[in-house]
């Protein structure tokens, strides 16, 4: 004969076990659905960064002319240099992902992050930009020089730039443009000038 209080305890424990099991099942279900919902809620273009509107120089590539063109625009830039760097690079990439772009980049192209340490900027591009990038010497060079030149023009003090893709080093952007080495800002400025585009003043 099982005492009554033990029966009650066992019953309560059973109920608690069932309830916690149901709760865990619901949590797991919610977790599985959460990433999809988050993805759906992601804005089409990144929200404008908060800060004071400033005039920035964008070096935009033109495939037909094979050169970069300087264009000034007004952007709200945050004070933090890393966020500021992200903002100017996103402004360049946003132009390239537009329908009538002179240098189209794949949809979803973006900058994951920019780290700035002692004059070296490490730019982490996302996989959509690199894996969907057109392959070719000129087309890849234009992308890289455009990003480096824009960064250097708007964040004085940067002397070299390293480009990563999804946090990883890789040899080239899409089979041609070097991503293994650091880009020297002075050398890039000279190359842009030689291209016939507008170099950084």
């Amino acid at each position, binding site marked *: 004969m*099982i*005492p009554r209080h*033990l029966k009650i*305890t*066992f019953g309560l*424990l*059973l109920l608690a*076990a*069932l309830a*916690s*099991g149901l709760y*865990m*099942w619901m949590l*797991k279900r919610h977790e599985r659905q959460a990433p*999809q919902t988050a993805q759906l809620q992601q804005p089409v273009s990144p929200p404008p960064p908060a800060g004071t509107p400033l005039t920035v120089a964008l070096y935009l590539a033109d*495939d*037909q002319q*094979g050169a970069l063109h300087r264009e000034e625009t007004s952007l709200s830039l945050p004070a933090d240099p890393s966020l500021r760097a992200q903002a100017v690079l996103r402004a360049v990439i946003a132009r390239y992902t537009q329908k009538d772009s002179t240098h189209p980049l794949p949809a979803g192209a973006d900058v994951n992050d920019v780290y700035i340490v002692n004059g070296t900027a490490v730019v982490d591009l996302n996989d959509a930009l690199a894996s969907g990038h*057109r*392959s*070719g*010497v*000129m*087309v890849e*060079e234009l992308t*890289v020089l455009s990003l480096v030149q824009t960064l250097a023009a708007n964040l004085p003090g940067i002397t070299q730039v390293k480009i990563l893709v999804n946090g990883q080093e890789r*040899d*080239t952007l899409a*089979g*041609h*443009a*070097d991503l*293994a*080495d650091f*880009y*020297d800002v*002075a*050398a*890039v400025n*000279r*190359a842009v000038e*030689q*291209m016939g585009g507008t170099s950084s003043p």
Partner: protein
Amino acid sequence: MAWTDRLPHNRRHWAPGHSRSSVAAVALLLLLLWLPQARPVTAQEYLSVYGLRATFSVPLQQYGGRDYVAVLDILAPLGEVAARKDGHKWKLRFNSVEVEFQEGKTAVKLANRRLQLASPFHLQDGRGLVPLSSLVALLSPLLPPPVELHETARRLFLGGAAVHFSAEVVHSPSDSVVLTFSAPVNPSIATEPGRLSMTFVREPLLHPSPSTMNFEDQYISSLSYREAEGVAELTLNSNVPLLARFSSDRKTITVGPVVQIVAQAKPQPVVPVPTPASPPAASSTPVPTPTPNIGAAASGQLAFPPPLPLAAPAPPPLVVVDASHGGTEPGAALSDILAEKDVVLSIAQRLHNDLEARGLHTMLLRNSDTALSLDQRAILANTSRARFYISVHAGSLGSGVRLYTALLPPITPASGTFLPWDSAQASYLSSSQTLSADIATELSKLNVSSRQMQAPLPPLNHISAAAVAVEVVPPGADVTQLNSAAYQEQIAGAIAAGVARAQQGATP
């Protein structure tokens, strides 16, 4: 009195027993509630798939303690495949054969047949997952036979894809084990005291019988084969340090003691240098251009080229022509059917012939659809001690020809015997620009427009010679003109003339 005495006595014996039962029951319930939940494996595991058309790996997922694999991941590289969800059903069409699965069920309809999976089918994010152990039953009606699964090793062989090997101990010219493979192989090699291991990731290497072979050799005692985690591994056990040497187009690997292998290979260069691309200019007998022996460098391991026949040492080439890309690296897709690697190979071969015709001894880095890494190209070019390096590329943007020299920071060129790898080109930048200008001059004579630029284009920075990358672009909007023999010949001729011009200028 009897009751009062018995009650505490009974309680003392009952209570602990019941508590243990309750706890065990609750634990069991919790376990049962947890079990059906799908738990992804912490470290991603893969199934290696070896087919006659493609070799690839697909991720595995765990459901209820069983390995599952996405059907589409396996079928997509092997043919035309489409899938759609229809309520609880998931319908798949592969090469006009229809397969119907149902979420949580083991029954599968395949055309007019019925199959039973070893465990229920699952749908996750629109991907149909089937148990790994049922792959053979599922794929056999869809793919050419045989379909062979090594489930514990996570290796799937399709259509008879297999690489076999034999091993033989030889004592002359040195004690070594010669492994002969039925197809070229490219294993990664690791050495440690007493053993040398070769790991075959992409090759469908199949095990011999028995899996361990013992040798009666004073140095190498045994060879063992094992397969696990999607790869095959051959291990040679020895009492001395071992080295591997590739030969016969990578179909043979000779493993022997370091001292003997090095002694055998001593008269040859350590870095594999291609044999001369053509006979001396005085000879009129055409000799086919051999492909370089990329054996050692391709795998990035310490290895030596095969023995060369005894002959007078060949003169170093004056020009290295590098057809960019190749093999699994196609470069730019110039059109739906035109890959950059094919166009540049054709142009490079023409350029090689034109340079030779001018009496400029030339080495072609690749003469077929083979892959070379960027570092291998630089190593081959630098060790050849050539004076000029021309890298050939093709593009569809713009028109004419673009000539690129290295994009280097303003640094003082290094002097001395050794040059820094990252900026080896700095000492040659001036002569590279002269070469570029000379090629541009020759192109302009043919009314071909050209641009001279700097580009971050590897491996230019690592080349210790006058180095120019040439990007050939179609003369008009029609990209197929890149494949025109006349256009390629025109461009190759102008580049050859430019190199000859630079050579004349450089000759004192």
